[in-house]
């Protein structure tokens, strides 16, 4: 399947690593049934005999009949309930000192509450299903479109889906209102990728668009049986006695939505639970909180105490009981009083029944109830965690892990979409040694604030334009004012370079307001948008031409359309780190425009512009330290002869069959030299709101934050600076695969050799860093440490032999940045810390590539409110912004932990006192097991009389107010260090 947009400028080429999205396998691929399914389009009767499944879905766990048996079974998987069932059975026998009601009543009450909760949750799922099943779709009936609910949709129906509508089933794409039978699809619900994918209908079916025409469509689809592979589809369409092969390009999956297309017509292939997305639906693995696991151990301990108590009683009883005690009437042959051993044996079970209340039966239910209220009432409804812009409140998708939030020590964060908005904005530029743009970045503002400087509110000059991708404010360059600057020619070249040297596709109306740029990366779009705002409006691209509407070029106010002929495109890749375009102006001038990373461009500059070079370099450093992403721009005038001779070589290289990329690179080197520096651009990779403060607060709370990103190292470090994770006072350890030794080995090309060399290098680096780290830890007031490691090195560092070293190094570092990591590696790093260091981990991410990491951590958090749902679906909590972590961890997590701990202590306290009274009493009753409390009192003590105080404690207990615990994050660290749960 062709998946457009998987190439990013800042991500590496496919040869370097696999694109993250491809490595995500959603569930395992099921073996396909050998048979094919045949679907008769537009012909319900012919499909009748096959009995395809309907389109209604059901995600409920139970139905009316299975609810009781299945629900009870689920309940009795809990060991405590089994225990109480056993006790209840015991209490029915004559050896019991208490009436059965004592144990049956609480057990049934507990079961009842749990079942009601299950029923309630299932009911909500049912209602959700119903609302999906009842949403409407238009299908073709008797030459017109008729709305029917989704659930009535059948295989073979012809449906019409309008713009922004969701596909109700897996649909074979027949025709679209767009030219060339294409439509745009957003697959965010499937894989979290927000860029639009193109689907193309078979040419033969393009006409079936209007009802009259579609009515005539009679075809037979032969295709594979339903399966869960999202990116494959094979089949044939037999129409008008022709067999046409089908590919995934023609399949529109349920869960996706239609974009940028007025409407499409298609034939339903898979419905309901047979759709690919439903077959992929998997339940997130249920996580149990560590506290709950500790609780199990505690209960086992208590159980041992119980057994000990009963043993003492049993032994006591067999010693004390005298068969001659005449008032006990033992003389009348009672077999259970035959001898001391018998007496002891039966008394043991009598006492077990009597003391059973030492294990708090309602503990789990109460805790569950408390956590449920905590998550539904407190977390979900916290106004501090409501994001107004995206209209998203926080949502606790599971209530199991509330208190786990209070114990988190490590946060693993994705970068794009989580720390940053993935929203690139053209912010500053430097042309011919003059820096333009007077904005102040958030990072600069943050630094100033930390130094106690007053930061004035952003003041924008009048008429400053602000749009997506453009946040530049400097009247010197706007509206043609650049003509009066010292270097108007360089300005012009810069703008042209921005407008020409790219691979962006314009879409929509050819007017500056309405045009939409489809770019492989938001950086590129931002640069083209910038050119547009400077008066160089790129509005049309044909295979050979780039059309630019230029204003103010010759004189102020003049607008003219210029078409540049694109002769060669020297594409971007991660080794070249630059991109060039050779173009011919209408007047015949031949120019090479090049943009790329600063060091790459500077290496290739011609002589003569030393002063500009020096100043530009300074500017680049300034931009970099304010957290901006920089690119250098350069150009070169070519004379036709040199160009022609070079072009021949280029064409040769391009048609080479072996080592084409390498040869192309070599050829590009030939022409990309002696460049003239124009200047540089600086793009702000906008951080999410409040990220640096949040990170600072969290690290004061003793939480260590690791950034795991697929981005290249420079970007990752840049963002780490921006987020306050790394600063210049820190000692940085960088373990990169971009070293000479490794590169050399790679050039030799022997895979085994490469692996060996990298492993050696990584080992050497790790060892060195670890020694230094330990050294600096031993010195007083040594610098804080940070580690930067890239994916390739990480792969070897995660090797079992090096793992320990990596772990001990990284645990000593305050912050760790892993770049170029695959989703799998993200999960591996997470579980390395989780298992290796036995620390509570939290992962936060927004995309499909974070799913594995989210599931690997103790607590997984998804960023909601964006388009992608995959991360949220896999997460335990969903919040709209990274900064809400402060509230989630420091307020809710902290309180939940405190409360649950107190609740547990309270429970054991009250049950111990309750039962120990019984225990001491048995000493005064000749160990006979006489009860001390009334039956009803004993049965209701746990579930009624003492239920409310505990729950109230679990809901309202506060040691410090929310604002205090946010202002003094250290409180949380101090809480964690002292064990709240008694270690028995």
């Amino acid at each position, binding site marked *: 399947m062709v998946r457009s947009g998987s190439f990013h400028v800042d991500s590496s080429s496919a040869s370097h690593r696999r694109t993250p999205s491809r490595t995500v396998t959603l569930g395992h691929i099921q073996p396909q049934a050998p048979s094919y399914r045949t679907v008769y389009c537009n012909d319900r009767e012919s499909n009748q005999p096959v009995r395809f499944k309907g389109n209604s879905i059901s995600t409920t766990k139970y139905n009316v009949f299975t609810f009781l048996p299945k629900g009870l079974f689920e309940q009795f998987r809990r060991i405590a309930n089994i225990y109480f069932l056993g006790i209840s059975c015991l209490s029915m026998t004559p050896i019991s000192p208490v009436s059965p009601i004592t144990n049956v009543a609480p057990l049934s009450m507990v079961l009842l509450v749990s079942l009601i909760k299950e029923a309630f949750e299932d009911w909500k799922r049912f209602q959700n299903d119903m609302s999906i099943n009842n949403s409407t779709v238009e299908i073709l009936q008797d030459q017109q479109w008729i709305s029917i609910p989704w659930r009535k949709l059948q295989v073979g129906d012809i449906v019409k889906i309008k713009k922004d509508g969701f596909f109700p089933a897996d649909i074979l794409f027949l025709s679209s209102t767009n030219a060339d039978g294409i439509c745009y699809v957003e697959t965010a619900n499937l894989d979290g990728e927000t860029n639009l994918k193109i689907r193309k209908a078979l040419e033969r079916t393009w006409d079936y668009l209007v009802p009259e025409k579609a009515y005539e469509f009679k075809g037979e689809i032969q295709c594979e049986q339903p399966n869960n592979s999202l990116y494959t589809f094979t089949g044939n369409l037999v129409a008008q006695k022709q067999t046409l092969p089908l590919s995934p390009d023609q399949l529109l999956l349920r869960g996706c939505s239609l974009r940028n297309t007025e409407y499409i017509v298609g034939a339903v292939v898979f419905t309901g639970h047979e759709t690919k997305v439903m077959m992929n639906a998997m339940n997130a693995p249920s996580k149990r909180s560590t506290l709950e696991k500790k609780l199990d151990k505690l209960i086992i301990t208590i159980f041992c105490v119980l057994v000990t108590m009963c043993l003492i009683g049993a032994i006591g009883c067999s010693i004390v009981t005298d068969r001659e005690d005449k*008032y006990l009437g033992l003389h009348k042959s009672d077999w259970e009083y035959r001898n001391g051993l018998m007496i002891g044996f039966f008394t043991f079970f009598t006492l077990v029944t009597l003391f059973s209340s030492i294990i708090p039966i309602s503990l789990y239910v109460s805790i569950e109830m408390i956590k449920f209220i905590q998550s539904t009432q*407190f977390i979900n409804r*916290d*106004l501090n965690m*409501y994001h107004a812009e995206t209209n998203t409140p926080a949502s606790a998708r599971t209530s199991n892990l509330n208190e786990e939030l209070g114990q988190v020590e490590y946060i693993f964060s994705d970068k794009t979409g989580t720390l940053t908005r993935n929203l690139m904005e053209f912010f500053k530029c430097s042309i011919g040694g003059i820096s333009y743009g007077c904005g102040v970045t958030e990072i600069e503002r943050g630094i100033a604030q930390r130094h106690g400087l007053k930061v004035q509110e952003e003041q924008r000059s009048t008429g400053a334009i602000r749009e997506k991708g453009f946040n530049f404010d400097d009247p010197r360059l706007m509206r043609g004012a650049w003509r009066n600057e010292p270097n108007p020619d360089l300005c012009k070249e810069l703008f042209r370079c921005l407008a020409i040297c790219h691979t962006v596709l314009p879409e929509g109306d050819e007017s500056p307001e309405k045009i939409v740029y489809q770019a492989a990366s938001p950086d590129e779009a931002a640069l083209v948008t910038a050119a547009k705002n400077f008066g160089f409006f790129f509005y049309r691209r044909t295979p050979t031409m780039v059309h630019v509407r230029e204003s103010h070029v010759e004189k102020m106010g003049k607008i003219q359309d210029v078409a540049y002929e694109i002769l060669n495109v020297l594409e971007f890749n991660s080794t070249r780190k630059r991109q060039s375009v050779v173009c011919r102006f209408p007047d015949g001038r031949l120019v090479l425009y090049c943009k790329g990373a600063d060091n790459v461009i500077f290496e290739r500059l011609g002589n003569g512009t030393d002063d500009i070079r020096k100043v530009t370099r300074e500017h680049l450093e300034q931009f970099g330290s304010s957290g901006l992403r920089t690119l250098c721009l350069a150009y070169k005038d070519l004379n036709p002869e040199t160009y022609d001779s070079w072009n021949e070589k280029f064409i040769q290289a391009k048609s080479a069959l072996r080592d084409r990329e390498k040869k192309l690179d070599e050829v590009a080197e030939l022409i990309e030299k002696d460049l003239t520096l124009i200047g540089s651009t600086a793009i702000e990779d906008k951080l999410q*709101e409040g990220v640096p403060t949040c990170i600072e607060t969290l690290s004061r709370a003793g939480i260590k934050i690791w950034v795991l990103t697929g981005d290249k190292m420079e970007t990752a470090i840049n963002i780490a600076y921006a987020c306050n994770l790394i600063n210049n006072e820190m000692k940085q350890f960088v373990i990169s695969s971009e070293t000479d030794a490794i590169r050399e080995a790679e050039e030799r090309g022997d895979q085994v050799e490469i692996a060996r060399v990298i492993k050696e290098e990584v080992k050497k680096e790790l060892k060195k860093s670890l020694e230094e780290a330990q050294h600096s830890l031993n010195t007083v007031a040594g610098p804080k440490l940070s580690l930067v490691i890239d994916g390739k090195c990480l792969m070897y560092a995660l090797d079992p032999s090096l793992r320990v070293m990596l772990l001990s190094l990284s645990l000593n570092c305050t912050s760790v940045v892993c770049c170029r990591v695959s989703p799998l590696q993200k999960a591996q790093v997470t579980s390395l810390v989780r298992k290796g260091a036995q620390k509570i981990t939290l992962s936060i991410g927004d995309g499909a590539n974070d799913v594995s990491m989210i599931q690997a951590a103790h607590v997984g958090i998804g960023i909601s409110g964006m388009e992608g749902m995959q991360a949220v679906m896999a997460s335990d909590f969903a919040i709209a912004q990274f900064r809400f972590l402060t509230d989630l961890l420091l307020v809710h997590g902290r309180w939940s932990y405190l409360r649950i701990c107190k609740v547990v202590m309270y429970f054991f306290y009250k049950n111990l006192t309750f039962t120990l009274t019984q225990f001491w009493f048995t000493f005064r009753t000749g160990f*006979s*097991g006489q009860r001390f409390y009334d039956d009803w009192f004993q049965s209701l003590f746990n579930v009624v009389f003492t239920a409310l105080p505990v729950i109230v404690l679990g809901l*309202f207990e*506060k040691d410090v107010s929310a604002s205090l615990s946010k202002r003094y994050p250290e409180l949380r660290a101090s809480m964690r260090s002292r064990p709240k749960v008694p270690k028995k």
Partner: protein
Amino acid sequence: MSSNTPSSSAAAAAGSAESSAARRNSKRPKYSKFTQQELPACKPILTPGWVISTFLIISVIFIPLGVIYLFASQDVVEIVDRYDTECIPPSDRANKVAYIQGAANKSCTRTLTVPKEMKQPIYVYYQLENFYQNHRRYVKSRSDSQLRSVKDENQIDACKPEDDFGGQPIVPCGLIAWSLFNDTYTLSRKNQPLAVNKKGIAWKSDKEHKFGKNVFPKNFQKGNITGGAKLNPNIPLSEQEDLIVWMRTAALPTFRKLYGKIESDLHKGDTIEVNLQNNYNTYSFSGKKKLVLSTTSWLGGKNDFLGIAYLTVGGICFVLALAFTVMYLVKPRRLGDPTYLSWNRIPGGR
């Protein structure tokens, strides 16, 4: 996602018509003090002043109370006489069980001296020790429904092994009734009989509701072994107060049960002769038997425990208050001193 200047998380400008429409679709949680966890709460800070004064107040209240309770307990005059061994002729003391199960005359005379003035009513108790009336097997061996109503006289399931006699239900059935205490006391002072009122010793509620007026003893104590007292089959259970008292089983193995009341004052130095029938067999389980004559105070019988407990708690609080005061004066600590915060004490907090 818009790229506008990040607006604060406050809701979109309220008031306009558009925003009210937006509010309807808004998922913005509704404000309530409960969901925002802003309900008023208080957390008392234990300042030295508070702590010391609380301890002082407790000791000031508890110590006088303890003294009052102790005095009240001291006011009670109690005569306790253990007679289980004394009432067996010295020759038979080697085998007490044989003696008590034998047919010899069990009468015995004890002489008590009144140490202080005793105001009426004076309660006569018998005290048994090491008698597990709270034994699980013993406690459940009774039939409340049978005691209550003549209709239910066949409900004797719980009464084993004293449930029936030759197929006929025993009324009252069960081990408790069967083992009814049967020592009797006859008191005299200066050769004048001292009346012991045996009416009104049982709980009124027991007489009226738990023991039926028309339930008469049947087949009682007819088995091979006699457990204890016999009952007059012509008196309904509700009037058999000794039985009613006995059937209210004691919680602990040492217990007193009311035998009767003396409704005249006893004077200091009076000697009282007790003529008792030592019938009840406590010897097989080495239990003790005691006769107790006691007055009561407003606090009940003689019991020093309450007073001592109050005095102890009050005393401890006083000592603590004193200790804290000294500590406060010797080594004061400023309230809210941030240097005591854990993260300030442990530098680095790594």
